[in-house]
């Protein structure tokens, strides 16, 4: 088990290094005028040019620049935006909102998705099964840029059940609609995966053995089928985090939630290079760490892969 963890940590370090290098290279490598690139389309004065050159070590070779960047990143110094605001500060403000939103979305996804998938998997071909299957198919195909504005329109504006925007300090209630929207695609995929997993496991040999032992249906399903069916679902949570992160950018924008996603979007639209790179790097770290956690949980659930 320990060896497994160490191996995964090493993999993670390699992937982290590779991913951040990729991001950094994409932003800064081989540019004719890196300062202009940093500033986007805004004109740059000579004074600003000097400051930026010094701050970003632009007079040094690329790899050295990357070295500085990594060192800063690892010590928690995310640098400052083009306007001079420390990125770390912006992040500290934005993260809690996004974390609340994402966790809430994940919670809904697991709650509705797994429950629906379990029932559908056990009752394949029933009305419930076919209708939820159709519904999840539509949801999976519905891009979040469509779902978010329309949900806001229907449930916020027209029906008035939820606030249309979340505001500066969003309450939990204000986050429910955005969380449902954000988690919709995950709910759908989780439901389908649980359904397929359950349907497959219900016919598995070890379930047949459990029945042969004369165990009650409730126990056979609740203990044997569920336990083995949930294993792939757990890995899906890891994959879904990436989709959640991406979806958060859109959701926070539409519902006006001051989180990581909307700040990132703002940075993109104002062409604030350092902010974009800084935020994306952090998101990469979060993504990798959560994937690692998911893998660990997976190893805990499935003893066969603990080598």
């Amino acid at each position, binding site marked *: 088990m320990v060896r497994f963890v160490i191996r995964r940590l090493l*993999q993670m370090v*390699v*992937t*982290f290094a*590779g*991913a951040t290098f*990729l*991001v950094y290279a*994409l*932003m800064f490598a081989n540019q004719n005028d890196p300062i202009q*690139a940093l500033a*986007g389309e805004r004109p740059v004065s000579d004074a600003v040019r000097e400051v930026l050159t010094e701050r970003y070590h632009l007079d040094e070779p690329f790899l050295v620049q990357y070295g500085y960047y990594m060192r800063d990143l690892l010590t928690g110094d995310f640098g400052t935006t083009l306007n001079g605001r420390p990125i770390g500060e912006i992040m500290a403000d934005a993260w809690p909102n996004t974390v609340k939103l994402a966790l809430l979305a994940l919670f809904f996804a697991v709650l509705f998705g797994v429950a629906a998938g379990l029932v559908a998997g056990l009752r394949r071909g029933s009305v419930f099964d076919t209708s939820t299957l159709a519904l999840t*198919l*539509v949801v*999976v*195909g*519905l*891009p*979040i*840029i*469509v779902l978010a*504005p*329309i949900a*806001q*329109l229907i449930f916020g*504006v027209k029906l008035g059940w939820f606030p249309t925007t979340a505001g500066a300090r969003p309450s939990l209630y204000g986050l429910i609609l955005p969380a449902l929207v954000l988690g919709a695609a995950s709910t759908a995929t989780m439901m389908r995966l649980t359904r397929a997993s359950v349907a*497959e496991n219900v*016919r*598995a*040999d070890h379930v*047949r053995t459990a029945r042969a032992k004369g165990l009650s249906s409730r126990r056979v399903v609740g203990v044997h089928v569920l336990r083995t069916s949930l294993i792939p679902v757990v890995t899906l949570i890891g994959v879904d985090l*990436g*989709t959640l*992160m*991406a979806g958060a*950018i*859109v959701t926070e*924008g*539409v519902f006006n939630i001051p989180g990581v996603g909307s700040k*990132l*979007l703002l940075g*993109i*639209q104002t*062409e604030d290079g350092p902010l*974009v*790179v800084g935020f*994306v790097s952090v*998101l*990469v770290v979060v*993504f*990798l760490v959560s994937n690692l956690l998911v893998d660990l949980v997976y190893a805990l659930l499935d003893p066969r892969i603990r080598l």
Partner: protein
Amino acid sequence: MSDLGTAAAEVAPAATEAAPAGGRSRSLAADAWYDLRRNWIFWVASALVVLVVLMAAAPALFTSADPTACDTRRQFAGPAGGAFFGYDFQGCDVFARTVHGARASVLVGVLAVLLTGVIGLAFGMLAGYFGGWLDALLSRIVDVVLGIPLLLAAIVLSKRLAADSQGSGIASVVIVLGLLGWTTAARVMRSSVLAARSQDYVAAARMLGAGPWRIMWRHILPNALAPFVVVLTITLGTFIATEATLSFLNVGLRAPAISWGIDIATAGKHVREAALPLVAPSLFLTLTVLAFIMLGDAIRDAFDPKLR
């Protein structure tokens, strides 16, 4: 499960031997086509796909209005004449814009999927067939690309490409999607190749002196193709959705290109004044994405022996 399998399995192969009646012998592809033909989802999805492709290739078939003939005096006007969805913020015919918007989406989707397909095929095939250090190296590359969620990487890359080039950005978006979206296809191809490689017919071919390329092309590829095509079909849907999202966020296509993403973004801002400009591109985008995903799903289900 094994017993039902035995009983059912005995039905098929035994039928081809002694007993003439009782069961037609079927190949996997023939079985899959049989299932596919009777699946109404397959037909609906295919019809939608044909419709969208037609719309992309020949928009004139659907609307005679000019999407760029915008008159601000008609801002937010309701449906009139051939403008089934009214007029948007700039006074453009929403329906005409939506119909013409299909071209960008389909073009981007198809080109990006082709690029993804080539990269994924190469990676998956090489990693799966040769294994060893090549596999390890390629898997690490996959990990790195996967380490950044698609949209984030697309945003960063798009910004970079946009800084370097002008124009409506179709090429950039295609490159972005193609370079970042091949990982699932590669993994699927790799596992198919791994499974096929250990089969006896590959060993037989090798024994007869076939070189690795021939084996890969003639023996492994045909068997690994079905799940790969399924992934590509679904990826097409995902790409169309991602392109729309990138355009929505202002990092994908931009004017003068007509994209559903752009239209949704502008319409979303003015949704209290008029809902129709939001509805049309949303509807078309959703149906298109759904069509490809459904198609891929239907094909996958048809080929899946576990669902018999």
